């Protein structure tokens, strides 16, 4: 799990182009949206693409992301439970 969290942080930084950030700067328990990292709806769409591309998880509705992207840890748990690759 901890390894997946590290991996995810790296992927998030890359796909969202969070220039100048390192995995250590992201608190895996902090919210990704709003406060916390301050991401928005387009970032959510990018994360949905990330999950499909890297872990074979396909969401049908952007709203489903709301629960999954609460924090990096929640996201990692969801991926662990549903990944197909």
């Amino acid at each position, binding site marked *: 799990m901890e390894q997946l969290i590290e991996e995810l942080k790296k992927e998030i930084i890359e796909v969202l182009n969070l220039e100048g950030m390192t995995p250590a700067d992201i608190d895996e328990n902090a919210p990704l949206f709003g406060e916390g990292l301050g991401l*928005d*709806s*387009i970032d959510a769409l990018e994360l*949905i*693409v990330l999950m499909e591309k890297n872990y074979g998880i396909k969401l049908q509705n*952007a709203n489903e992301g709301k629960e999954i992207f609460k924090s990096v840890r929640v996201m990692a748990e969801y991926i662990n439970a549903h990944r197909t690759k």
Partner: protein
Amino acid sequence: MGADETYACLLAGRSGIGKMKYLKSKHTDLPVGEVPFSDEELRENLFIKEDASITRTSLLGACALREALVSASLFPRDKSWKMALVSGTTVGGMEKSELFYYDFLHTREKDEYIALHDCGACTDMIGQANPYGFEMMTTISTACSSAANAIILGANMLKLNRTDIVVVGGTECLSKFHLDGFNSLMILDHEPCRPFDKNRNGLNLGEGAAYLVMEREETACQRGISPLCKLSGYGNRCDAFHQTASSPDGEGAYLSMMDALAMAGLQPSDIDYINAHGTGTPNNDESEGHAMMRVFGDAVPPVSSTKSYTGHTTSASGGVEAAISILALIRGFIPANLNFSEKIDSLDFTPVTEVKQGVELHHVLTNSFGFGGNDSSCIFSKIS
């Protein structure tokens, strides 16, 4: 195709949204509003040779342009008047570029389409496809409000006597690029779109083209033409909220409607029908609805989104919906908003669900909103 057929479909509640036939996308489960003619058929219609390179956006535009010119008694051309063409498009020649992109970079097979890729090239081709000479032309690209902004530029040109007659509108064909783009934003409904419905789940992408011929009253008089209606007001404002999302209170939409009303010298209560932007996405319809409630209070006039018939024709939509608004005005009817069943919780009004015939309309407002918060509104009024 054409004003009469459009009118017949609107009266009969017959939507053009369905399965894709000519667009070669793998996402065949997505309904689209495709123009039911192949490129070859469109070419034949325009007497364009089989081997001439032309994009579908231009073909659609050229067909619509010709109909507009014929109906304004400008076909063949009368050289005594200065004429301009202002056309809106966004993806331009992309539908060919996405097919030939490998060739563009690696072979010499499709070089002629490289020059047809950009927006301006589409307008140029539309002008050329009609045996016609314009004294001036330009292209507007403000995404889904492109054609509405063409109307606005054209009107300003007429006011300053920069042209005698101006043809304004927009054109856009379906492309994988566009369909996949909207799909990547997860705002395409897998069912026929449901504008202003509580359970709406996105838009259906459409294609099309529409042009209006505009001139000053005295020019029409000198030409012996009786105009269909008057463009009495318009507004263009920016929501300045988000690149793709509309603000919750619809600030840009509110301001553009208010500007149009002020320019027309009308009260909100003078508006008899609103042809809404109404894409069917959760975000647009709620935001637009709030903006309408801010403008019209608890007396929102009859509203419908005709995107439930055409799909979202993006850059053309401002032209297509202006044409429908004018049809409604001169033929005295209000088109229905298809697929509506339940009111949006936060809105106080519901759209018109049954076509209303034999109604006297004086002023019709039409909204066109684009990505990036490019919001425009136009008011068409009956000539008394």
